Structures are given as C-alpha cells and as structure tokens.
C-alpha cells in the first residue's frame, strides 16, 4: 500500500494525458474497427519512429522541432500511401499495413545498428511513459488535437478516406509520444471493440465512459499496488471493455425484449 503515491499532483497529469488521448482515439477507434485496419496505429507510429531515427542520424542539427516535423511528415506519407492502397487493393489492406509495420520496424533497427543513442530517441517516440508527461507535452498534444478536431468538424462528410488517414497520422504521432504505443493501441481498440454494436452518440458516450474508467482505475491501482502505470492501465482498460460490453449488451437485450 502506498497511499502517498495517490497524490493528485503525481497521478493528475497522467489522467489528463489519458483523457486527451481518449478524446480523439475513441472516435478514431470506431472508424479503424469498422474499416478492419486495427494495426494501422502500430504501422503509423513505427513509420513516424523511422522518420525520427533518420532525422537524428542525418539532420541532427535540426533539433527537436526538426525531428518532430520529420516524424509527422513520415507518418503523413505513410497515411497517404495507405489511402492509395485501400482504394486499389481494399481486400489486402490489413496485410499491407502489417507488412508496412515490420518493414518500418526493421529498417529502424538497421539504421540504429551502430547507434544505441538512436535507440533512446526511438524509445522516446514509441514508449512514452504516461507518468513522465510534462505540461508542455500536454499543451502541444492538446493543440494538435484541437486542430484535428476543428478540421474534422469543418470537413465532416467531405473528409473522405484521405482526410481520415491524415488526421489519424497526426493524432497517433502525438499520442504515442505522450503515453506509448501499448496505451495508444488500447485506447483506440478496446473501447471501440466493447461498443461495436452501439450506433452514433450512444456508442461514443459508452466508449468514452469505458476509456475513462480504464484510465482512472488503472492509475489508481498502479499507485496502490506500486506497478508500472502504463501496463496496469492496459489491463484495467481490457477489464472495463469486457464489463462495458456485457452491460450494454444486457441493456440492449432488455430494451429489445420490452419493445
């Protein structure tokens, strides 16, 4: 038991980071699931990581902003590529995403073969730790998300596949650095999976609820039992998704029976 670890100033920023990630990833996750391209976040994040490694190796003098720009650029390029491939070969889109993931990951390893400091940079990009979030990182992510949400609202139905991939790439590049790849995947897929049978605003509301419950209980539990926060949240999120799926299905069964 570690009651002092429950201090709001310790776990508060982590919860804010979680809420930020959920704000975009719950709706995005519903799209991803619908399209059957669940591993796209891994692929996009890995390509962003590859871009960051290349930036570190070949343009070190550009600094942190340069690295970020190239990472986002690489992610956007991958997004456009995936948009083309979905239009041409929709039936093998998931397989292409998987292929892109392993190739980007391996290319990164090769670039890093002689440079363990590069590995640290890749780690910063792929395994962000939710407890280490700084106020400035939260602000940057918030700004990126607001831009994405505004673009999504303005374009709405004109967004199309290209728009979806582009916004997705920006969101994932930002969120992976904040909370790490496992939590991004969990935030994207688990709530969406739990509420897959619910339509519209109801599905979205339940998805947010499940995500929030997953983050809050995971952060609390990790403080109480003193275990790595990111991994605990992924597990509590899975439990909340199971509970949420059961609750909404029972609710639906009842309403179907009474009507």
């Amino acid at each position, binding site marked *: 038991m570690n009651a*002092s670890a429950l201090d709001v100033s310790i776990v508060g*920023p982590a919860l804010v980071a979680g809420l930020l990630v959920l704000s975009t990833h719950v709706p995005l996750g519903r799209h991803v699931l619908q399209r059957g391209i669940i591993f796209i976040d891994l692929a996009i994040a890995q390509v962003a990581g590859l871009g960051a490694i290349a930036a570190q190796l070949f343009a070190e003098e550009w600094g942190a902003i340069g690295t970020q720009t190239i990472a986002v650029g690489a992610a956007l390029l991958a997004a456009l590529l995936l948009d083309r491939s979905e239009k041409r070969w929709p039936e093998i889109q998931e397989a292409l995403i998987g292929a892109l993931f392993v190739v980007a990951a391996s290319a990164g390893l090769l670039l890093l073969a*002689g*440079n*363990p400091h590069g590995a640290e940079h890749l780690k910063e990009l792929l395994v962000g730790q*939710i407890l280490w979030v700084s106020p400035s990182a939260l602000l940057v992510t918030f700004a990126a998300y607001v831009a994405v949400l505004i673009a999504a609202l303005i374009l709405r139905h004109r967004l199309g596949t290209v728009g979806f991939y582009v916004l997705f790439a920006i969101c994932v590049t930002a969120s992976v650095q904040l909370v790490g790849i496992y939590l991004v995947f969990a935030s994207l897929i688990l709530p969406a999976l739990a509420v897959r049978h619910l339509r519209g605003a109801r599905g979205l509301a339940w998805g947010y609820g499940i995500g929030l419950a997953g983050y809050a209980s995971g952060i609390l539990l*990790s*403080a109480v039992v*003193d275990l790595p926060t*990111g991994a605990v949240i992924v597990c509590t999120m899975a439990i909340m998704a199971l509970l949420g799926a059961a609750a909404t299905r029972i609710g639906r069964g009842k309403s179907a029976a009474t009507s």
Partner: protein
Amino acid sequence: MIMKRNFILLLWLTALSTPSANAALNVFACEPEWAALAQELGGDRVTVYSATTAMQDAHRIEARPSLIAKLRQADLAVCTGAELEVGWMPMLQRQAGNARVQPGRSGYFEAAAAVDRLDVPSQLDRSMGDVHAGGNPHVHTDPRRIATIADALAQRLAILDSANASFYAQRQEVFAQRWRQATREWTARAAPLRNVRVVSHHRDWVYLFDWLGLQDAGTLEPKPGLPPTASHLADLKQALAKSPARMILRAPFEEARPSEWLARETGARTVMLPYTVGGTPGARDLFGLFDDTIARLLEAAK
C-alpha cells in the same frame, strides 16, 4: 477511506520531517548498492528506499507513481551518476518537484563523482555505442572505491542532518574499519584470480577487473548497450581460440543465452555474479555482495 488514511499518513510524515534529533532522514537510492550503503552509515536515523532492484537494469526502468512520491519526500537522493540514470532520473526529478534533490543541491549525491573513473572517452562520438561522457558508471564493483564513496556519503549525511553529525561520523568510522578488514580478506582470497582472462556481457565489471587484476578478454556486446551481432560473436570466438578465457560474466538482469552460447563454443564457464545487493541470495548486504562475488569467481576458476 483512502483519503483518510492518506491524511493520517501525511500527518505522520509531517511529524517525521520536522527537524528534531530523532527525525529520520528520507533517503532515495537509485540502486540497491547505495540503499545498502546509506543504511550502513545512517542506521536508524535514515529511512531508505531503493528505486530499483538487483533484477533491474538501472539504465532503464518503468515509471511507477511511488517513484515520484518517494523522491518528493526525500531529503537525499543517492545515485550512481556518470549518466547511468540519464534515461529516467532527470524526468523523475522534474516530476517530483522537490528542490532539495535537484542536481547541484546537497540533497543530490552522485557516487561516481567521488571516485576516479575508468573508460573516460578522450572524445565523444555516437558511433562508439552507449558510452558515458563521465566514464564507466559501474563503480560499485570495486570495494576500494566503495570505501571512498562511503566517506563522502557520511559527510553528506552529516551536512544534511547536522544534529546527528557525530552519529554519522562514528558509524562511518566503524564501517570503514570493518570494510578495510573485509577488503583485505577478499583481496587475499582472490589472489588466484590475478591475470585470469574473462569475457563479460556488458562492461559492468571494469572496476572489479581493476581491483582483482582480472584480464578483460572482450565483451559479448559489440558496443556498450548494443545486442550481440553475428560478426562480432565470430570475431570474439576467433580471438578466444587464440588466447582462451576462463569464464564469461553476466549480471542477473542480463540475458543468459549469449553467454551460454559462447560457453558452448569455447569451453569457458558462465558465471552469474550478484552485481549488486540482492542479486543472489548470498548478497544480502554489501559484505555479502563481495563474499558471494569472490566465491563464485573462485568456483568458476577451479
């Protein structure tokens, strides 16, 4: 319920942290060896917390809320320094927001800074691998250097908790005496190890080599921090065919497979050393750490 318990705990901690002769100094140790040393020197006047265990590689650790909480309460952070904790300690210091333990303050003690270091690069080049500008940070594998660090740490405890200054000085004197005696015995017992050729997984043991006169026959890692590659292992095997090594050292947190492979290929024996306090059942404290290290080395050298 939790809120209430939290509040009571807070009161209790506040009571503890008010300056009085009985107040325990909160020590946050980055690694188990410094937790053990702080306990030796501070006795019941310190409350020691270790951020890592012997089974963790202190180069990288996962973030837990308790780490931030413990550093926030700490009066003194005792770390290795020389960039060993560069991947997590700066983040932890920022997140804890505790002015007492920031770099440069008397509440932040770097053990490696108190001793002379080996492997200090004459020039820093990223192609050299995970090289630390401050030299090799694994200073605690040499008991002579631990003696120097103990002296510096006792002085630091006395500065931070001046009411107990004479207490720390006295404990340091007792410790130094026992440690000198033990080091003499270890050195005598380890005499057969002089000039024995050993391979290591990572350059964890250069200070141990420096102390016992073991000969460095190469590392499984091609460069510090990089996993073994096929061509490097082939080179190593070839070099060992010319001048064989007696044993292959690794720490408890390092993968066994590379050293087992090399043992099969060359006939050298693999030895897992405790590396730090808690690394093996025998390494219960700093004395046990070196008792067990020497015993395991002698066993493998037979």
